[in-house]
């Protein structure tokens, strides 16, 4: 059985598993990193959204054999430590202040997608977000937290525009 080597949440890992097993299951079933959720396995619901080299992606749609040893995956568990500073990532902080979560199941993915959107805007020198850009987020929330997600992203963008925060490896 092949040995898969990559980085996750700052740690170098080696896992014995077939090349075609999707990363989501390697994280969840073999490494006990359960923040990324299974909501469809089809790259639709976005509840597994995590970051690879600073950019959002869906681990449900990546055969683990496609990762290089230097690729760094950051899941919700590692988000706070993947940026400078103590405490939580500013997006997580705003998520708490706005009390966004209801059942919470989709929220790791919501937060990672928000981090990616905000990083992209900041890299473009933007300090605002349009309704169309908020509409572009694909994350399903069956509790309907969408209005608070929009509010939280606007607030987090304002906070991060003052003090830019980028996850390791993200384009600045």
């Amino acid at each position: 059985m092949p040995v898969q080597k990559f980085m996750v949440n700052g740690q170098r890992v080696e896992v014995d598993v077939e090349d075609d097993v999707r990363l989501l299951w390697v994280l969840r079933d073999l490494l006990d990193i359960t923040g990324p959720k299974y909501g469809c396995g089809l790259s639709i619901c976005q509840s597994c959204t995590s970051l690879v080299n600073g950019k959002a992606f869906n681990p449900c749609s990546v055969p683990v054999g496609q990762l290089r040893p230097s690729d760094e995956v950051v899941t919700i568990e590692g988000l706070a430590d993947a940026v400078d500073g103590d405490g939580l990532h500013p997006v997580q902080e705003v998520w708490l202040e706005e009390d966004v979560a209801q059942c919470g199941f989709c929220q790791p993915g919501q937060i990672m997608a928000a981090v990616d959107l905000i990083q992209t805007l900041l890299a473009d020198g933007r300090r605002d977000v349009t309704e169309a850009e908020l509409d572009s987020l694909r994350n399903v929330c069956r509790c309907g937290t969408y209005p608070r997600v929009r509010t939280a992203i606007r607030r987090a963008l304002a906070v991060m525009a003052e003090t830019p925060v980028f996850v390791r490896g993200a384009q600045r």
Partner: protein
Amino acid sequence: MRQSPDVSRRRFLGYVVAGPTLITAARWIDPLATADAQELPRIGAQIAESYDLIDFLRDAARPTANLITVTVEDDGTVSFELHRTEVGQGINTAIAMIIAEEMDVPLSQVRITQADARPELLFNQLTGGSNSIYTIYDPVRIAAAVARQRLLDAAAIALGSAGAELGILDGVIRAPDGSSLGFGELARDASSQVTEAVDVQPKRERPRIVGTPQNRIDARAMVTGELRYTGDLVVPDALPTMVARPPTHLGRPVRLRNEAAVLAVPGVTHVALVESGVAVRARTFGQCIDALQVIDVEWAPGPAAGMSDESVQAALADAELPQVVPDTGALTPLGIPSPVQTRDFSFTFAFQPNCPLETNPCVADVRTDRAEIWGPMKNPVVAQQDIASALGLPQDAVTVHVVQGGGSFGRDLFWDAAREAALVSQAMGVPVKLSWTRTDDFRQGRAHPACRSSIRITRSETDIVSYAQHHTSVNTDFGHGLGEIITARADELPGGLGGMGFSQTVFMLTQYVPYDFGAVEQLLAETLPAPGEIETNVFRTGSMRNIYSPNVVTARELAIDQVAAEVGRDPLELRLSTLRDARSVAVLEKVAEAGSWGREMPAGTAQGLGFHSEYKGRAACLIEIDCRPETVSRTVPTAAYAYTGPRVTRAIYAVDVGLTINPRGLEAQMLGGMMDGIANCLSFSLHLVDGGFAEDSWEHAYYTRQWNVPFETQVFILDSSSQPGGAGEFGVAASMAATANAYARATGSMPTSFPINHGMPLAESIVPQGAIPQSPTDGLGRR
């Protein structure tokens, strides 16, 4: 700011329960405690106006309320094993707030966990019908008040001070001389070696926590990924397991044709045929999905084989009860226009999936003499009974652990996954961590039943003088144990309900017309199966958030708007002049004022109103919708599959649930309910095609997405009494109705079939029945 609620002056009896630390409970069997129950109903009143579903569930819970205990630990933590299930509705936070309020401890010092199945609670461990806060508020408050009193008594002795001189701040009791003791230091002294009854009066001063906006106590665990849902649990040897399911809804497996090939799939350890399909256990869920690509099973068709949306709607039309109010005709016998006219309306509603995002997970470890089950169950006692029976074990050999759920919306009232996981574990002889696939969840999961609602309104001049609504539904499965309550309590119910079926009871305890419309009648008929026809359900149905109300209320509110238009009355004025009480008028006036009802809007856009009363509360919604072609045909660059359609641009909600425990949580429930209401009206349904539901993923089942969310949302909370009502489902019906009315006004055409996009052709990319789509492999490329 909200007003200080009129906290009851009544004294209650509670218990200090024998134990090594302070444990307290409530005695709570006085059924005349509700003000509503003492009011004389008006002539012609409907049952639900004075005694509704949450009264019923609360009365059923009274005899066992004293089995619910508050415990003070020696570290000062106040812990409470909640006999309800947190699934996102914020019940853990609300209960923690009630305890923190009564005992003057910081919210962070209260620890709420989900209780295991406790069969001794009988009817008092059901999470549904928005009954939780209404049912638990008094018992928790009383138990906490007993604890507070005992701690004060113990502190008076320890500090050598008269009880009346002591004060409590943040879980510390202080004497006038400055000496103090924490709850933890007093817990042992305050405990009792025998259970004793205590007379107690809950706090009377102005509340400090209850009624203030509080963030969820579990939010940090959610945003850091630390919260473990069922699928995240680590139970030794409980490997990932999925089930191959039939190509028709509720079909059955006959035999597995290629066991060796399935076992040869990398990672697969076991395969077993069970009642619902063929289960595969593997090292990872990905390898289960691999096995589902090669598995070959012979299937027997399900009970809905050959049925379609059209045949179901035809069966509903056949089962509809005829109207008894005569049709007056447009002309009098003398040939002049009749001053009294009848108007008929019929609306149809498609099946809807009540899928949460979590896909029916369950962990089961079944041994020869015992079983242990973990899952997000809202009915754990009935689940335990059913699973024990299915496994051939005594009930007390089955331990059911209730795990916080990733959404429910009615789904977790049933334990389909738990029963299945238990049977799979038994058949394989090993522990399993079962998950349904997303596709399973839409096709074989629970559905809100298809239904139709027909209304006959009689008007005299410009007034409505009679209103009759006949609601006809595919059978709603209430087989989740409430039936036991009916058996126990049917004879005691007011209004001659005894002997009626459970659906009828729920309908009559939830539906009433809040307007003065003269002679009023609302009836339910159900079919598929027809009463007494066959024992098993044709479809796996269940209550979806707010049960009958979204459909019944939407039909009613649309009909009111149409009659108003026909007689030249403003829809707001007609409602305000016929609503029966000040609370109703207040919420409707609030949304009309905040939303500037009647403001000028461009052609193709419009406002709409909806009103709904249930759960002792009142709710109103104002929606603004944009149905212009350029909006309806908009695209989303990131999601080629996106269903866009009409856009609700603004949503305003006003709600009065009586006493609000947590305004922040209530607002969240209303916001979420509005997202449901919009989806119910415009886009979210299942298509029944040849005995199976077609939808396979969120790509084709159009629940509200960001591209459908209103740009502006507002929720106003109007408090009106000292007793909390129900809230978890209360955002759906009024917003669905308001969206429908806004759509009718924007397009000039009243919709009669819901959701409005249901007639759209199915996407060609939907996977065939019986197939499970394989996960993509281009995730690095498409980021």
